[in-house]
Protein backbone atom coordinates (compact mmCIF):
# COMPACT_ATOMS: atom_id res chain seq x y z
CA UNK A 1 0.00 0.00 0.00
CA UNK A 2 1.54 3.33 -1.03
CA UNK A 3 1.92 6.13 1.47
CA UNK A 4 -1.26 8.01 2.17
CA UNK A 5 -1.91 11.01 4.37
CA UNK A 6 -5.72 11.23 4.20
CA UNK A 7 -7.71 11.00 7.45
CA UNK A 8 -10.97 9.40 6.31
CA UNK A 9 -13.01 11.62 8.62
CA UNK A 10 -11.97 14.61 6.51
CA UNK A 11 -12.48 12.90 3.14
CA UNK A 12 -16.18 13.10 2.32
CA UNK A 13 -16.75 16.78 3.27
CA UNK A 14 -13.98 17.65 0.79
CA UNK A 15 -15.39 15.40 -1.94
CA UNK A 16 -19.03 16.42 -1.47
CA UNK A 17 -19.22 20.10 -0.49
CA UNK A 18 -22.93 20.11 -1.40
CA UNK A 19 -24.13 16.57 -0.53
CA UNK A 20 -27.83 17.42 -0.78
CA UNK A 21 -27.66 17.58 -4.55
CA UNK A 22 -26.95 13.83 -4.65
CA UNK A 23 -28.82 10.61 -4.08
CA UNK A 24 -26.48 8.48 -2.00
CA UNK A 25 -26.07 4.89 -0.92
CA UNK A 26 -23.32 3.72 1.39
CA UNK A 27 -21.78 0.37 2.13
CA UNK A 28 -21.77 -0.82 5.70
CA UNK A 29 -19.55 -0.05 8.69
CA UNK A 30 -17.12 2.88 8.36
CA UNK A 31 -18.41 4.01 4.98
CA UNK A 32 -21.91 4.26 6.43
CA UNK A 33 -20.74 6.22 9.47
CA UNK A 34 -18.72 8.63 7.36
CA UNK A 35 -21.61 9.20 4.95
CA UNK A 36 -24.16 9.57 7.75
CA UNK A 37 -21.90 12.15 9.39
CA UNK A 38 -21.53 13.99 6.07
CA UNK A 39 -25.30 14.27 5.61
CA UNK A 40 -26.53 14.12 9.24
CA UNK A 41 -28.10 10.81 8.14
CA UNK A 42 -30.31 12.61 5.63
CA UNK A 43 -33.30 11.28 3.72
CA UNK A 44 -31.37 11.29 0.43
CA UNK A 45 -28.98 8.67 1.84
CA UNK A 46 -29.58 4.92 2.18
CA UNK A 47 -26.97 3.36 4.47
CA UNK A 48 -26.43 -0.36 4.72
CA UNK A 49 -25.68 -2.39 7.83
CA UNK A 50 -25.53 -5.81 6.16
CA UNK A 51 -25.96 -7.46 2.74
CA UNK A 52 -22.24 -6.83 2.30
CA UNK A 53 -21.38 -6.31 -1.35
CA UNK A 54 -24.68 -4.71 -2.41
CA UNK A 55 -23.79 -1.00 -2.35
CA UNK A 56 -22.71 -0.64 -5.97
CA UNK A 57 -25.74 -2.61 -7.16
CA UNK A 58 -28.18 -0.48 -5.16
CA UNK A 59 -26.52 2.64 -6.56
CA UNK A 60 -26.74 1.27 -10.09
CA UNK A 61 -30.45 0.55 -9.66
CA UNK A 62 -31.01 4.11 -8.45
CA UNK A 63 -28.94 5.56 -11.29
CA UNK A 64 -30.76 3.58 -13.99
CA UNK A 65 -34.20 4.35 -12.57
CA UNK A 66 -33.50 8.06 -11.90
CA UNK A 67 -31.26 9.02 -14.82
CA UNK A 68 -31.55 12.76 -14.15
CA UNK A 69 -30.32 12.54 -10.56
CA UNK A 70 -26.62 12.40 -9.67
CA UNK A 71 -26.07 9.19 -7.70
CA UNK A 72 -23.09 8.48 -5.43
CA UNK A 73 -22.04 5.15 -3.97
CA UNK A 74 -19.74 5.46 -0.96
CA UNK A 75 -18.20 2.16 0.03
CA UNK A 76 -15.10 0.49 1.41
CA UNK A 77 -12.49 -1.83 -0.03
CA UNK A 78 -13.80 -4.93 1.76
CA UNK A 79 -17.41 -4.32 0.73
CA UNK A 80 -16.46 -3.67 -2.88
CA UNK A 81 -14.20 -6.71 -3.13
CA UNK A 82 -17.07 -8.91 -1.95
CA UNK A 83 -18.92 -8.16 -5.21
CA UNK A 84 -16.36 -7.10 -7.80
CA UNK A 85 -18.61 -8.35 -10.59
CA UNK A 86 -20.93 -5.42 -9.94
CA UNK A 87 -18.29 -3.15 -11.51
CA UNK A 88 -18.59 -5.06 -14.79
CA UNK A 89 -22.36 -4.60 -14.69
CA UNK A 90 -21.92 -0.85 -14.14
CA UNK A 91 -19.53 -0.68 -17.08
CA UNK A 92 -21.94 -2.49 -19.40
CA UNK A 93 -24.83 -0.20 -18.47
CA UNK A 94 -22.81 3.04 -18.75
CA UNK A 95 -24.94 5.14 -16.36
CA UNK A 96 -24.13 8.77 -17.05
CA UNK A 97 -25.10 9.82 -13.50
CA UNK A 98 -23.19 7.35 -11.29
CA UNK A 99 -20.09 8.06 -9.20
CA UNK A 100 -18.49 5.41 -7.00
CA UNK A 101 -16.15 6.35 -4.14
CA UNK A 102 -14.16 3.58 -2.49
CA UNK A 103 -12.65 4.47 0.88
CA UNK A 104 -9.67 2.13 0.91
CA UNK A 105 -8.10 1.66 4.33
CA UNK A 106 -6.63 -1.74 3.45
CA UNK A 107 -8.37 -3.43 6.33
CA UNK A 108 -11.66 -4.70 7.73
CA UNK A 109 -12.10 -1.92 10.26
CA UNK A 110 -15.45 -3.02 11.67
CA UNK A 111 -14.27 -6.48 12.67
CA UNK A 112 -10.97 -5.58 14.28
CA UNK A 113 -8.73 -4.16 11.58
CA UNK A 114 -7.75 -7.40 9.90
CA UNK A 115 -5.68 -6.71 6.74
CA UNK A 116 -7.51 -6.87 3.42
CA UNK A 117 -6.32 -7.61 -0.12
CA UNK A 118 -5.55 -3.98 -0.91
CA UNK A 119 -2.95 -4.02 1.89
CA UNK A 120 -1.21 -6.74 -0.10
CA UNK A 121 -1.22 -6.63 -3.90
CA UNK A 122 -4.68 -5.59 -5.09
CA UNK A 123 -5.31 -2.22 -6.78
CA UNK A 124 -9.04 -1.52 -6.97
CA UNK A 125 -8.55 1.39 -9.38
CA UNK A 126 -6.86 -0.96 -11.84
CA UNK A 127 -9.76 -3.40 -11.39
CA UNK A 128 -12.30 -0.63 -12.03
CA UNK A 129 -10.35 0.41 -15.11
CA UNK A 130 -10.26 -3.16 -16.34
CA UNK A 131 -13.97 -3.64 -15.65
CA UNK A 132 -14.62 -0.76 -18.05
CA UNK A 133 -15.51 2.19 -15.83
CA UNK A 134 -15.12 5.29 -17.99
CA UNK A 135 -13.25 7.56 -15.57
CA UNK A 136 -10.97 6.32 -12.79
CA UNK A 137 -8.91 8.35 -10.32
CA UNK A 138 -6.82 7.53 -7.25
CA UNK A 139 -6.08 9.96 -4.42
CA UNK A 140 -3.75 9.50 -1.45
CA UNK A 141 -3.14 13.05 -0.21
CA UNK A 142 -5.45 15.86 1.00
CA UNK A 143 -4.15 18.30 -1.61
CA UNK A 144 -5.64 16.06 -4.33
CA UNK A 145 -9.17 16.27 -2.95
CA UNK A 146 -10.28 19.49 -4.67
CA UNK A 147 -9.48 17.91 -8.01
CA UNK A 148 -11.23 14.71 -6.90
CA UNK A 149 -14.40 16.67 -6.06
CA UNK A 150 -14.38 18.12 -9.58
CA UNK A 151 -13.78 14.62 -10.96
CA UNK A 152 -16.94 13.34 -9.21
CA UNK A 153 -19.15 15.84 -10.99
CA UNK A 154 -17.28 16.62 -14.18
CA UNK A 155 -15.49 13.55 -15.50
CA UNK A 156 -17.33 11.31 -17.99
CA UNK A 157 -19.44 8.78 -16.06
CA UNK A 158 -19.57 6.16 -14.73
CA UNK A 159 -16.76 7.33 -12.44
CA UNK A 160 -14.67 5.48 -9.89
CA UNK A 161 -12.64 7.30 -7.25
CA UNK A 162 -10.27 5.26 -5.10
CA UNK A 163 -9.40 7.19 -1.94
CA UNK A 164 -6.53 5.58 -0.06
CA UNK A 165 -6.84 6.61 3.57
CA UNK A 166 -5.00 6.13 6.84
CA UNK A 167 -6.19 3.17 8.90
CA UNK A 168 -7.83 5.34 11.55
CA UNK A 169 -11.38 5.34 12.88
CA UNK A 170 -14.38 6.54 10.83
CA UNK A 171 -16.63 9.36 11.93
CA UNK A 172 -18.44 8.75 15.20
CA UNK A 173 -22.07 8.88 14.10
CA UNK A 174 -24.99 6.74 15.29
CA UNK A 175 -27.21 6.31 12.27
CA UNK A 176 -30.62 4.70 11.83
CA UNK A 177 -29.93 0.96 11.48
CA UNK A 178 -33.50 -0.10 10.64
CA UNK A 179 -33.37 -0.98 6.92
CA UNK A 180 -37.14 -0.82 6.43
CA UNK A 181 -37.43 2.53 8.15
CA UNK A 182 -34.58 3.91 6.04
CA UNK A 183 -36.32 2.68 2.88
CA UNK A 184 -39.55 4.45 3.80
CA UNK A 185 -37.67 7.60 4.78
CA UNK A 186 -35.88 7.70 1.43
CA UNK A 187 -39.05 7.04 -0.57
CA UNK A 188 -41.21 9.44 1.41
CA UNK A 189 -38.71 12.20 0.70
CA UNK A 190 -39.22 11.54 -3.03
CA UNK A 191 -43.02 11.69 -2.67
CA UNK A 192 -43.39 7.92 -3.17
Amino acid at each position, binding site marked *: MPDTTIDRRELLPRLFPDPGRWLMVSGLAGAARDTAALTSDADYLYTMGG*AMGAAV*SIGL*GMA*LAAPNAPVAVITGDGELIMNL*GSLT*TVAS*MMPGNLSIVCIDNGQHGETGGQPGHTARRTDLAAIAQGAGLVSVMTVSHPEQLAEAARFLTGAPAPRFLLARVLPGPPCDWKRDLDPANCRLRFRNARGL
Partner: protein
Amino acid sequence: MTQPASLAWFRSLFAQLVESGVTLFAYVPDAGNAALIDLADAHNETRTVLLAAEEEGVGICAGADLVGARGVLCMQSSGVGNCANFLSLVKGGRFPIFMIVTMRGDYGEMNPWQYPMGQAVEPVLDAMGVLTFRVETEDDLQPATAAALSACFKGGQGVALILSQRFLGAKPF
Protein backbone atom coordinates in the same frame (compact mmCIF):
# COMPACT_ATOMS: atom_id res chain seq x y z
CA MET B 1 -38.39 -34.94 -21.78
CA THR B 2 -41.62 -33.59 -20.41
CA GLN B 3 -44.12 -31.72 -22.50
CA PRO B 4 -42.93 -28.11 -22.86
CA ALA B 5 -45.16 -25.09 -22.54
CA SER B 6 -46.23 -23.48 -25.80
CA LEU B 7 -43.69 -21.01 -27.09
CA ALA B 8 -45.93 -18.01 -26.54
CA TRP B 9 -46.05 -18.16 -22.75
CA PHE B 10 -43.31 -15.58 -22.32
CA ARG B 11 -45.34 -13.01 -24.28
CA SER B 12 -48.22 -13.12 -21.84
CA LEU B 13 -45.82 -13.03 -18.88
CA PHE B 14 -44.00 -10.03 -20.34
CA ALA B 15 -47.29 -8.24 -21.00
CA GLN B 16 -48.41 -8.75 -17.40
CA LEU B 17 -45.12 -7.41 -16.06
CA VAL B 18 -45.20 -4.33 -18.28
CA GLU B 19 -48.84 -3.73 -17.39
CA SER B 20 -47.76 -3.69 -13.73
CA GLY B 21 -45.19 -1.00 -14.39
CA VAL B 22 -42.03 -3.10 -14.53
CA THR B 23 -39.33 -1.26 -16.46
CA LEU B 24 -36.06 -2.99 -15.44
CA PHE B 25 -35.25 -6.62 -16.19
CA ALA B 26 -32.07 -7.65 -14.37
CA TYR B 27 -30.88 -11.10 -15.40
CA VAL B 28 -28.27 -13.76 -15.53
CA PRO B 29 -28.70 -15.52 -18.87
CA ASP B 30 -30.59 -18.82 -18.86
CA ALA B 31 -32.23 -20.80 -21.63
CA GLY B 32 -35.48 -20.51 -19.65
CA ASN B 33 -35.52 -16.68 -19.56
CA ALA B 34 -33.88 -15.91 -22.93
CA ALA B 35 -37.13 -15.22 -24.80
CA LEU B 36 -38.43 -12.97 -22.01
CA ILE B 37 -35.20 -10.97 -22.01
CA ASP B 38 -35.32 -10.65 -25.80
CA LEU B 39 -38.78 -9.09 -25.50
CA ALA B 40 -37.57 -6.69 -22.79
CA ASP B 41 -34.60 -5.72 -24.98
CA ALA B 42 -36.87 -4.97 -27.92
CA HIS B 43 -39.51 -3.00 -26.01
CA ASN B 44 -39.24 0.80 -25.90
CA GLU B 45 -40.16 1.21 -22.25
CA THR B 46 -38.19 -1.64 -20.67
CA ARG B 47 -34.47 -2.05 -20.15
CA THR B 48 -32.39 -5.14 -19.43
CA VAL B 49 -29.42 -5.32 -17.09
CA LEU B 50 -26.95 -8.14 -17.65
CA LEU B 51 -25.60 -9.22 -14.25
CA ALA B 52 -22.31 -10.85 -13.35
CA ALA B 53 -24.04 -12.69 -10.49
CA GLU B 54 -27.64 -12.99 -9.39
CA GLU B 55 -27.36 -11.19 -6.04
CA GLU B 56 -26.56 -7.95 -7.84
CA GLY B 57 -30.12 -8.01 -9.15
CA VAL B 58 -31.54 -7.89 -5.63
CA GLY B 59 -29.55 -4.70 -5.04
CA ILE B 60 -30.49 -3.19 -8.41
CA CYS B 61 -34.21 -3.83 -7.85
CA ALA B 62 -33.90 -2.34 -4.34
CA GLY B 63 -32.17 0.75 -5.74
CA ALA B 64 -34.89 1.15 -8.35
CA ASP B 65 -37.54 0.87 -5.62
CA LEU B 66 -35.89 3.66 -3.63
CA VAL B 67 -36.57 6.06 -6.51
CA GLY B 68 -40.01 4.68 -7.38
CA ALA B 69 -39.30 2.27 -10.24
CA ARG B 70 -40.07 -1.44 -10.54
CA GLY B 71 -37.65 -4.14 -11.57
CA VAL B 72 -37.63 -7.92 -11.79
CA LEU B 73 -34.72 -10.32 -11.30
CA CYS B 74 -34.59 -13.23 -13.75
CA MET B 75 -32.31 -16.18 -13.12
CA GLN B 76 -31.85 -19.91 -13.16
CA SER B 77 -32.54 -21.76 -9.91
CA SER B 78 -28.83 -22.16 -9.15
CA GLY B 79 -28.63 -18.39 -8.67
CA VAL B 80 -31.06 -18.38 -5.76
CA GLY B 81 -28.30 -19.60 -3.47
CA ASN B 82 -26.15 -16.65 -4.49
CA CYS B 83 -28.90 -14.25 -3.44
CA ALA B 84 -29.47 -15.42 0.13
CA ASN B 85 -27.61 -12.73 2.10
CA PHE B 86 -28.80 -9.89 -0.16
CA LEU B 87 -32.37 -11.01 0.52
CA SER B 88 -31.87 -9.33 3.91
CA LEU B 89 -33.24 -6.40 1.90
CA VAL B 90 -36.54 -8.30 1.70
CA LYS B 91 -36.75 -9.78 5.16
CA GLY B 92 -35.26 -6.82 7.01
CA GLY B 93 -35.76 -3.91 4.62
CA ARG B 94 -39.19 -4.90 3.26
CA PHE B 95 -38.13 -4.15 -0.30
CA PRO B 96 -40.70 -5.59 -2.76
CA ILE B 97 -38.30 -7.71 -4.82
CA PHE B 98 -39.81 -9.72 -7.71
CA MET B 99 -37.81 -12.76 -8.81
CA ILE B 100 -38.47 -15.03 -11.79
CA VAL B 101 -36.71 -18.35 -11.24
CA THR B 102 -36.41 -20.78 -14.13
CA MET B 103 -35.86 -24.21 -12.63
CA ARG B 104 -33.16 -26.82 -13.04
CA GLY B 105 -32.66 -29.74 -10.70
CA ASP B 106 -36.37 -30.29 -10.86
CA TYR B 107 -38.83 -32.50 -12.77
CA GLY B 108 -36.91 -34.56 -15.35
CA GLU B 109 -33.42 -33.15 -14.68
CA MET B 110 -30.50 -35.18 -16.06
CA ASN B 111 -27.54 -33.20 -14.66
CA PRO B 112 -26.70 -34.33 -11.13
CA TRP B 113 -25.01 -31.00 -10.36
CA GLN B 114 -28.34 -29.22 -10.68
CA TYR B 115 -30.22 -31.15 -8.00
CA PRO B 116 -28.68 -29.77 -4.78
CA MET B 117 -29.49 -26.11 -5.43
CA GLY B 118 -32.63 -26.86 -7.44
CA GLN B 119 -34.12 -28.71 -4.50
CA ALA B 120 -32.99 -25.97 -2.08
CA VAL B 121 -34.66 -23.09 -3.95
CA GLU B 122 -37.89 -22.99 -1.99
CA PRO B 123 -36.32 -23.63 1.45
CA VAL B 124 -33.79 -20.82 0.85
CA LEU B 125 -36.46 -18.38 -0.34
CA ASP B 126 -38.73 -19.34 2.53
CA ALA B 127 -35.92 -18.84 5.04
CA MET B 128 -35.35 -15.31 3.71
CA GLY B 129 -39.02 -14.35 3.72
CA VAL B 130 -39.65 -14.53 -0.05
CA LEU B 131 -43.10 -15.85 -1.02
CA THR B 132 -43.07 -18.47 -3.79
CA PHE B 133 -45.59 -18.89 -6.61
CA ARG B 134 -45.03 -22.10 -8.53
CA VAL B 135 -46.00 -22.62 -12.17
CA GLU B 136 -46.40 -26.28 -13.14
CA THR B 137 -48.67 -25.94 -16.18
CA GLU B 138 -49.49 -23.26 -18.72
CA ASP B 139 -52.84 -22.73 -16.99
CA ASP B 140 -50.98 -21.75 -13.80
CA LEU B 141 -48.95 -18.98 -15.41
CA GLN B 142 -51.39 -16.08 -15.68
CA PRO B 143 -53.00 -16.46 -12.23
CA ALA B 144 -49.68 -17.17 -10.48
CA THR B 145 -48.11 -14.11 -12.12
CA ALA B 146 -51.09 -11.96 -11.16
CA ALA B 147 -50.95 -13.20 -7.57
CA ALA B 148 -47.18 -12.62 -7.35
CA LEU B 149 -47.49 -9.11 -8.80
CA SER B 150 -50.20 -8.20 -6.31
CA ALA B 151 -48.25 -9.62 -3.37
CA CYS B 152 -45.12 -7.73 -4.43
CA PHE B 153 -46.05 -4.34 -5.79
CA LYS B 154 -49.30 -3.89 -3.88
CA GLY B 155 -48.67 -6.04 -0.82
CA GLY B 156 -45.03 -5.06 -0.36
CA GLN B 157 -43.74 -8.64 -0.23
CA GLY B 158 -40.64 -10.20 -1.76
CA VAL B 159 -41.85 -12.83 -4.21
CA ALA B 160 -40.50 -15.49 -6.56
CA LEU B 161 -42.39 -16.78 -9.57
CA ILE B 162 -41.00 -20.28 -10.00
CA LEU B 163 -41.23 -21.68 -13.51
CA SER B 164 -40.84 -25.42 -13.03
CA GLN B 165 -39.14 -27.83 -15.38
CA ARG B 166 -42.47 -29.52 -15.80
CA PHE B 167 -43.73 -26.24 -17.26
CA LEU B 168 -40.58 -25.25 -19.17
CA GLY B 169 -39.64 -28.74 -20.33
CA ALA B 170 -36.56 -30.49 -18.98
CA LYS B 171 -33.42 -29.80 -20.99
CA PRO B 172 -31.88 -32.83 -22.68
CA PHE B 173 -28.42 -32.35 -21.10
